[in-house]
């Protein structure tokens, strides 16, 4: 991915983040992301993120499962090996409903979790830059990207005006890596600017 420069602001209350996010969007600065220890309902709308389509993906995985189960069982029991069970019909649809249902749920659930991990780039051994160690504890961390059009000092003072409790500048990798990217390749530095 890419190494970029960011201004990081820490907030104590999720309510304050809503106002801050709105002001950042109005000001034209490039909002990188907001990190929080808990899901904040409505923040995605405030940030202008589009709705996730993970439900649609789940639906597609689900009907794929239904189709596979129905087509496989009907091929097996009517064409490949028609088993005579007490003279009952070979195409015994009602008896297949439990397996079709279970397979639908299995495909939808497994598919959705894998899609979720792919979209969020989550996997064992994966490492990412953390802008603040307490972003998974009690701090809401808003990150603004420094672009060629503006400079870090300007954004820092703007971040202070939003009421951030702690402001600093960081140069960070935006993607993920495996192993000790930070120490050996010296690609990211942490220069703390006192607010």
């Amino acid at each position: 991915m890419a190494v970029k420069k960011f201004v990081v602001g820490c907030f104590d209350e999720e309510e304050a983040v809503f106002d801050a996010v709105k002001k950042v969007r109005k000001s034209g600065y490039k909002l990188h992301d907001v990190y929080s220890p808990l899901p904040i309902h409505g923040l995605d709308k405030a940030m202008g993120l589009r709705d996730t389509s993970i439900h649609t993906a789940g639906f597609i995985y689900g009907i794929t499962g239904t189709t596979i189960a129905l087509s496989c069982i009907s091929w097996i029991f009517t064409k490949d090996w028609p088993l005579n069970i007490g003279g009952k019909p070979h195409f015994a649809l009602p008896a297949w409903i439990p397996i079709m249902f279970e397979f639908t749920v299995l495909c939808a659930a497994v598919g959705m979790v894998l899609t979720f991990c792919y979209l969020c780039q989550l996997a064992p051994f994966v490492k990412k830059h953390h802008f603040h160690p307490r972003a998974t504890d009690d701090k809401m961390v808003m990150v603004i990207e420094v672009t060629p059009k503006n400079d870090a000092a300007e954004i820092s003072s703007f971040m202070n005006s939003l009421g951030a409790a702690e402001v600093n500048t960081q140069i960070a990798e935006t993607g993920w890596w495996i192993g000790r990217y930070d120490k050996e390749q010296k690609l990211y530095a942490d220069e703390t600017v006192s607010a």
Partner: protein
Amino acid sequence: MASFKYESQVRAPLVDGTKDYHQVTEDIVRPIEAPPSRAWWIGFIISVALLMFGVYSIYREVTYGVGQWNLHKTIGWGWDITNFVWWVGIGHAGTLISAILLLFRQGWRTGVNRAAEAMTIFAVMCAGQFPIWHMGRVWMAFFVLPYPNTRGPLWVNFNSPLLWDVFAISTYFTVSLLFWYSGLIPDFATIRDRAKLKWRKLMYGLLAFGWTGSAKHWQRHEALSLVLAGLSTPLVLSVHTVVSFDFATSVIPGWHTTIFPPYFVAGAIFSGFAMVQTLLLVTRKVLALEDYITMEHIEVMNKVIVLTGSIVGIAYLTELFIAWYGQNPYENYAFMKNRVDVFSPYGWSYWLMMGCNVLSPQIFWFRKLRRNIVVTFFMSVIVNIGMWFERFVIIVTSIYRDYIPSSWAVYYRPTIWEVGFYLGTFGLFFTCYFLFSKFFPVIAVAEIKHILKKSGESYKKDMGKVENESVDQLYHEVHAAHAHH
């Protein structure tokens, strides 16, 4: 404020005490960071010892065959399938709490869902052992999977409830595991970011999958949880329905009844909640989590127990009525002679079941008893004994007297290896639970934070103003605030 959601003051707070987000993290993660207590070691060692005894019992069964168990001509299923159904039933409360109560917006589920889901996963693992080892030639267990093979290809029978069970149990286990783990990812990240020890940082870094808490990730996480809950809801109902089909689709008197699916599902929830009570009453005490698993949680679960216990009671009585009303002599004999008659060989087990499952939970109509920890703990054990006997009654009393009275003479009692196998699954279950309670957050940290400002005691007090003020006063305040702007 945007994220404040109003909750009535009539409802007791779900999180007691004055807490902020950091305090929540501290309270729940502290036991993971502290060295295990002496009680933990004692419990863990006993569990592992039981597990070892179970492993040896299975070794006997695999080496010498199913003859190590006292199964015979009429009793082809004994303790083994009783234990299977019992464990699967226990496994139902976790998904009920995490999925169905999520869809019903029951805030109290948040304090108990993580431990209940863990219980589900471990209980299904235990349940799965029984049909697998009952196969006898266990190295052919893969024959239950439908795949093109060199035996014809000879396929599995898709019309058989036993195969439906293979699909139902394995799907249930997989989906529960995914649901549980996706909820654990943000909490593992919390532990990782606090960790001071190198191995702990490494281990939780591995488990946390690189979670950062990004807004977009949370949005997807919420959507994923909701859809998984939607999928798990019919799934959890289907699993015990399919287990009941194992019996209901047969033509054995005592099994051949259409009431089985709802009756099994209610019984499963009943026993599952009892096991959740048994585990959480100990867990909250040992890990000092009384502020998160409060008396409200215990009381509401006791209400579920009295409701489902009564549903099960109605099912028992309906079965008896239909056995008489249906006028089928075999059905009538199975119920009236093999079960209800106290002096029949297994009559005692029927009345033990009735006493434990139908009569004893009725004490929970009294609020004082619902909120009594000792009574609750005692009842949770009684209910699970009763539910074990329910499965024993259904299985054994329906088949020990078949259509040839000459084979009635043999009284079925388990061998030490049958009992050992059952004890071994207790060992497996508690070994897993002890490891879980030591290394995993037993309460969903991020989810508790999410309800803290709505249902936390200190926050609720501030919001109580809205209900205590008169309408006039409130109107003036709002008016003044507008004028000020």
